[in-house]
């Protein structure tokens, strides 16, 4: 009889545990924790993991536990696809991508599996058709960022004749992403693109800079990552070109790391991004510091824009999960629908970016605004209010 009571008690406990068990919302991330570009990827993944933990600790999605699975793909497309498919076995409702190549390759998979993908890559081709129904950008695209710099040049150029610009881009789809739009915009704005230099990495850019100097280049726009831009700035300083050429760059060229790497050579560098900076007095940045400190991140991580990227991506998905939970069960279908209703009254303002996050069937770019910032006295300072590029919709209408 005693055994029967114990068995019944155990069964009842099991039934209660099952009844009150939190349901899971599975979000997958695959990116470069090691290998190329891991200097950015390691902070992005920290941001994602921390925000997920924060969401669970603060019970941001009542009744649900957020399970963020993160795996290193070594910046290898095959590994990205492998990770994506393995997450499907774990009932993933949404995926956070990283590399441009891997995300471009996943477009067809997202459509077939009906799983949304929001990447760290801001390649406009990700949200161009075909297979773009489930593809999202968290902030403005590389194209819009680069075009905003072209507009700044056209407005602020003081010399005679067309301003001469050289572009320095990564030799990959990531680097080439804004080039076509930039050429079209340059024609509209009356800017001359002297050269588009492709490179992966280099230790010295003296020859390239001297060539540009001889060609009369007045502006350089980078679509690359921080370290080669820092090397260029240092080479330009050695050649005395910092006063002759205005150096500028899109989202992944700037941030605190650029100043650390380039030192005083970074002075006057102009950067286009949609993110606030950790030293700005903004609610999102306060939250970033709180989260970073709560989960034991070092100061380097807390001050990194790539950490903000991870926080923003995770926060958008968790908000979508919250909206989906309000209307019933969180499934990949309800999650996707919730993501598309994130507009109007449902606009999301996590405070990490210069504008609110909104998505709809026709709008797959989360934060639509950006700012230009310039290094002044060793720190980035905003030189414009939040705005949209006027030429971008002209050269790249929705496709």
């Amino acid at each position, binding site marked *: 009889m005693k055994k029967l009571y114990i068995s019944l008690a155990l069964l009842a406990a099991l039934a209660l545990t099952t009844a009150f068990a939190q349901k899971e919302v599975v979000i997958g991330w695959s990116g470069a924790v090691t290998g190329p570009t*891991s200097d950015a990827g390691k902070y992005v993944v920290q941001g994602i993991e921390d925000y997920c933990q924060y969401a669970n600790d603060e019970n941001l999605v009542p009744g649900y536990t957020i399970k963020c699975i993160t795996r*290193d793909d070594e910046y290898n497309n095959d590994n990205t696809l492998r990770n994506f*498919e393995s997450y*499907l076995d774990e009932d993933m409702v949404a995926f956070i991508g990283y590399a441009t*190549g891997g995300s471009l390759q996943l477009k067809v998979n997202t459509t077939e599996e009906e799983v949304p993908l929001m990447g760290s890559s801001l390649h406009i081709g990700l949200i161009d058709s075909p*297979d773009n129904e489930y593809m999202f950008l968290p902030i403005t695209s590389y194209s819009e960022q680069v075009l905003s710099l072209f507009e700044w040049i056209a407005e602020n150029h003081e010399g005679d004749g067309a301003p001469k610009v050289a572009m320095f881009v990564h030799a990959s*789809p990531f680097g080439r992403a804004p080039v076509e739009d930039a050429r079209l915009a340059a024609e509209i704005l009356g800017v001359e693109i002297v050269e588009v230099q492709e490179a992966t990495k280099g230790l010295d850019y003296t020859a390239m800079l001297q060539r540009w100097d001889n060609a009369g280049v007045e502006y350089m726009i980078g679509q690359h990552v921080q370290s080669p831009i820092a090397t260029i700035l240092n080479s330009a300083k050695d050649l005395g070109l910092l006063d002759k050429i205005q150096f500028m760059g899109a989202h992944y060229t700037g941030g605190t790391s650029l100043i650390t790497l380039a030192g005083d050579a970074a002075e006057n560098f102009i950067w286009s991004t949609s993110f606030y900076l950790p030293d700005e007095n903004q609610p999102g940045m306060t939250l970033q510091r709180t989260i970073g400190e709560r989960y034991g991140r070092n100061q380097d991580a807390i001050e990194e824009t790539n950490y903000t990227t991870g926080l923003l991506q995770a926060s958008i998905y968790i908000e979508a999960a919250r909206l989906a939970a309000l209307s019933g069960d969180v499934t990949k279908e309800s999650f996707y629908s919730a993501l598309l209703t994130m507009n109007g009254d449902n606009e999301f303002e996590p405070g990490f970016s210069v504008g609110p996050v909104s998505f709809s069937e026709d709008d797959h770019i989360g934060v639509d605004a950006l700012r230009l910032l310039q290094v002044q006295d060793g720190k980035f300072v905003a030189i414009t209010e939040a705005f949209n590029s006027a030429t971008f919709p002209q050269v790249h209408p929705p496709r």
Partner: protein
Amino acid sequence: MAINRWIQSGNYRRSYKEDQTIFATFSEQASLIVFLIFLALVPHMPFMNRQLFRVVDLAFIYTIAVMGLNIVTGYAGQINIGQAAFMGVGAYAAVTITRDIATPLFQFGKTLPFWYIIILLPLSGLVAALVGAFVGLPSYRLKHLYLAIATLAFQIIFTWGVGHSPFLNQGGSIRIARLDFFGTVIKGSKTIGPFFYYFALIVLIIMAIAMRNILRSKYGRALIAVRDNDRAADAMGINPGLTKVYAFAISGFFAGVAGAIFALYNGSVIVESFSLSTSIDFLAMAIVGGLGTMVGSLIGPSFMLFLDPFVEKFSGFAQTIFPSTIDVATAMRPTIFGLIIVLFLIYEPRGLANWWRLLRQYFWRWPFKY
């Protein structure tokens, strides 16, 4: 005394005709059949999930490319550091032929009929073979490291050329429609994984039979003769230059077929999949498997691809031991794979194929040692 071909413990082929047989013993034949039946059953095993399907499917596809590499490097002795580019040529041939010729011509909708794939694979292989023959032309004059540099140049030119070609979307992804297999559209990882498991396996078997047959023909022996001593081969009436070009063409064909399957498998093509590091991975697979052996081409890619997730886990573990300022994890993968290649080159240059040979001989001779 007649030889019992079920239990013979060595090579007792006594005539040229017997030497031409594909299998030395019936037991070898039977064990292969059993192994193929096992492979046919694998997709039905409960442990097969999407991730495993991807690893195995990729192993099959890469094996076809590595078989081609083994022909040119292992059998003909010509170093090739551009096999991924040849694979890329096949992949891009498949997508562009489909997009610009076949779709307007045959009015394909959102899917491609299976009969078309049967034509597309050899066609893509043929394009890659022509490019392979062209790239192989320097082998008339160049040898060893100089030829390696020539193939490296092709790899670089391929990546640069695709990246700057608007026709190829500047290396960005180009979509290829999914297959329609007699009324069933092969889309979604749940269907793609098992379908391409069988599809790639069947193509692999066909290519393996083709390779085996090439190697036991006079053309195959010419490859080995040129590798071992091209002057002696020349003296015997073999044209070494033409043989090398021919080796590059066959190698290109294998890579091209692999590339076309790769494109169909992923549903899109992107230049980053055919980078120099992939070419070096192929070379590593061939070396670890065993250069100049067919079994090596089959074992090497699987070994390396299955090892990768373990290395990834180990890298993560190693990073927890060291301070976060030292990026040990990033260095771990190239270090481990580099070490494996070096150790194989020093201690087992005949690769895993030799271990397989020793294992088989052990069972042949059992219970005797010699």
